[in-house]
């Protein structure tokens, strides 16, 4: 993957600005009055107890949910209801809490599906494997191979993902998200259910993605060790309300956060 040195750009430019959003499902308020800024090149963690609204927040960022109130700005422009493929075109990619890969396809094929949106179509050329069709195939395969190299999954390139252990599937899913060459990468509990070694590997890949490609990363994670280690900034939600926003150290010592996690005594 070409290395754009975006990481040299200071981490102050806001790429997504979320203002005072309210999201409710019928009578249930999932998010109330949450404002959040995502800055270019940062690793932002969203944490909170169960049912705090983390996944809802991620879905608002990715555009799957449209809040009833409030504004979502993407690079300075207000974003309204949007179709999933347009989200992908904007440069937003995600992985899922429960792995959502094509189980019968190989790791390589799964990663290639991530490039779907970037392919130009010409059925005729592709059937004959010539001209544009051929050039495209080669170009996309090359990108996919670069990702395979990056994630060190050469040995499972041709293995159907259903046969892979959980940690490896997670890695393939990250690969598919990377295949989009996203500007903003959303990770929904990337380390859930992993053993220590798998977690360490995943942490390293998340950091490497951020460092080498300058990708902005928003992640939801329950493992506090991981969150405190790798994120630049942490946002804490509780009952749909943002109760803290700052560096890991700052958030850790905030009383509200401690109360939310340990209960008020």
């Amino acid at each position, binding site marked *: 993957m070409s290395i754009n040195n975006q990481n040299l750009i200071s981490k102050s430019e806001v790429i997504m600005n979320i203002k005072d959003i309210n999201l409710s499902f019928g009578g249930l308020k999932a998010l109330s009055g949450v404002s959040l800024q995502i800055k270019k090149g940062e690793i932002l963690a969203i944490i909170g107890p169960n049912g705090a609204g983390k996944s809802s927040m991620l879905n608002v960022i990715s555009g799957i949910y449209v809040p009833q109130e409030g504004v979502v700005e993407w690079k300075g422009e207000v974003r309204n209801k949007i179709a999933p493929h347009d989200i992908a075109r904007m440069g937003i990619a995600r992985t899922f809490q429960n792995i959502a890969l094509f189980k019968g396809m190989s790791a390589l094929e799964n990663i290639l599906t991530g490039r779907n949106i970037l392919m130009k179509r010409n059925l005729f050329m592709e059937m004959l494997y010539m001209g544009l069709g051929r050039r495209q195939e080669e170009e996309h*395969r*090359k990108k996919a191979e670069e990702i*395979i190299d990056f994630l060190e999954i*050469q*040995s499972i*390139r041709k293995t159907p993902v259903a046969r892979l252990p959980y940690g490896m599937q997670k890695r393939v899913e990250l690969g598919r998200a990377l295949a989009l060459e996203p500007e903003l990468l959303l990770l929904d509990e990337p380390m859930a259910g992993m053993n220590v070694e798998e977690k360490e590997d995943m942490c390293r890949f998340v950091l490497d993605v951020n*460092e*080498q490609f300058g990708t902005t990363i928003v992640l939801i994670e329950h493992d506090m060790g991981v969150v405190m280690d790798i994120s630049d900034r942490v946002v804490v939600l509780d009952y749909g309300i943002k109760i803290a926003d700052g560096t890991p150290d700052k958030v850790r010592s905030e009383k509200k956060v401690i109360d939310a996690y340990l209960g008020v005594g």
Partner: protein
Amino acid sequence: MTRDFVALDTFPKILRNNAEVFKGRPSIREKEYGIWQITTWDAFYNRALLLAEGFYASGLRRGDKIAIIGDNRPNLYLSIASAQILGAIPVPCYQDSVASEIEYILEHAEAKLAIVENQEQVDKLLEIKEKLPLLKNIFYDDPRGLEKYDVKEICSLDVILDKNRDMNIDLDKEINKTSKDDISIMLYTSGTTGRPKGVLLSYNNIVSVTSIACEIEKTGPDDEVVAYLPMAWVGDNIFCVAQSYISGFCINCPESRETLTLDMREIGPTYYFAPPRVWEGMLTQLMVRMQDASKVKLWAFNFFMKIAKKWGNPILDKKNVPILARALYGLGYFLIYGPLKNNLGLTRVRMAYTAGEAMGPDTFLFYRSLGINLKVLYGQTEATVFVSLHRDGDVDPNTVGPAFPGVDIKIADGEVFYKGSGVFKGYYKNEDATKETIDKEGWVKTGDAGVIDNNGHLKIIDRAKDVGKLNSGNMFAPKYIENKLKFCGIIKEAVAFGDNKDFVTCFVNIDLEAVASWAERNNVAYSGYIDLAGQSSVYDLIAMEIDKVNRDLSQDTELNDSQIKRFLILHKELDADDGELTRTNKVRRGLISERYCMLVDAFYNNKNHCFIETEVTFEDGRKGAISADLKIKDMNIYDLRDQVA
């Protein structure tokens, strides 16, 4: 094709010639981005020249040492070639050595440059750089993770290769300057005792020995070899590099260690080398997997393996075999052996070697019965590998074959000595050790105890210094006993004690893969290695194997006393990172008996268990401790009479 290796007496000269003779043919292949990328001989030569200019600009001169550290990568082989063009001496190091081991070698060798594979190795060198004032630059192959390093001494190999220089050095002349008595490469022997020693091998050593080897096996430009064994090991330099230079065949570098089996299957090497450990591992894995096969398949497998066992070897040795047996073997080949070989990536293997340790006759004959021409060779770094070698049609699993052409072997006081054109030039900066090893007439001491049998085959018994005496006065050859134990497949490593003792005892390491599979099939629950190793059912399993060995030993009048009376299963695997094995996985006997002296004492003090705590080193250098209460189990001892009855 025969070429005159009198005029072409050094690698740089041969390489220059190869660039013409084998122009357009592949010299080295590497799987990268899922595709085998080929470098032709002419391209390889041209890149070697470019890199040589770069090395020269970095101050590398004739006679300087240059360290090479990493997995088998084309650019590391290229670095060796470039250094040799300049008359510098490459010093490959084991890639999984810890920083302190590398520090010793680089300091002793006075290395000026280091060419390393990746960030892991760069980090190791930066850690010890302060202690190595002579080391000027570190060049790396894979830039991953190194972009942000702000150290002026480190630089990517690609940067040097891309730089256009106007150099005032005529490399053609430099190549002409190399002569057959120059040192081609310096290899540090891992050494089961003491510090590693730098073995100096001249071009004459390597070219003369290798061209004989190529002639015996009739290697040609169409052969394929997969380079996967450590570059610091003499075998890689002979079987891959030197033979490829002389025969013009292609070296294939696998994508990564994990993909080796897949890559092997894709390349289908014709020439394959593996230490017994790898062959045995392959067989164990195969048998474990066969346990899960359907009944019909398992039946077919067992049936045809019996056929193969009976007729495979005679067919391979081109002996007369009844037509019906041949037909059955043919059918077996179609149904079982062929697919099996294909699965192992050994379909095209024309010659296969094993060396370094003894290999179980059963394992050895298993591969041969499949039609794989597996042969044993016996050698040393000091001999430029070859001392003895099995020849086609004259293979005996209990020996290491007759002397290699041009090598004389003699046995003095039970110890093996040899002499020949491959004999090394000496240990670097260690006159005393050199004199101790090579005597005035040129005989080299191997340190191995051996005999020559009636067919002129050499048979190795043990390390000469390890051969001791039991209190009964009979010979005690620990390695011989250990090898017998290891042949069973569930014992990965064994260490026997008995010198100056009344009876023989031993430590055992179980083979986790094989025993875990057994545990699964027998509903034995366990949480990890330590737990599994301590289970009494596992003890019983091992005891059964030891019992077989004891029965076997009891048949031998000489070794009747060497039956194992007591044993224990160690709570941890013996590990090179803890210094218990050498980097080539040989047991460091002295260190083990010192570290575990409590256990040895327990053996002879009639205790039936012993508590031990051991320090372990993790891969990243951190240390930890593990402890266990180890049981000691007593075995039956058989009399010679028992066998007769």
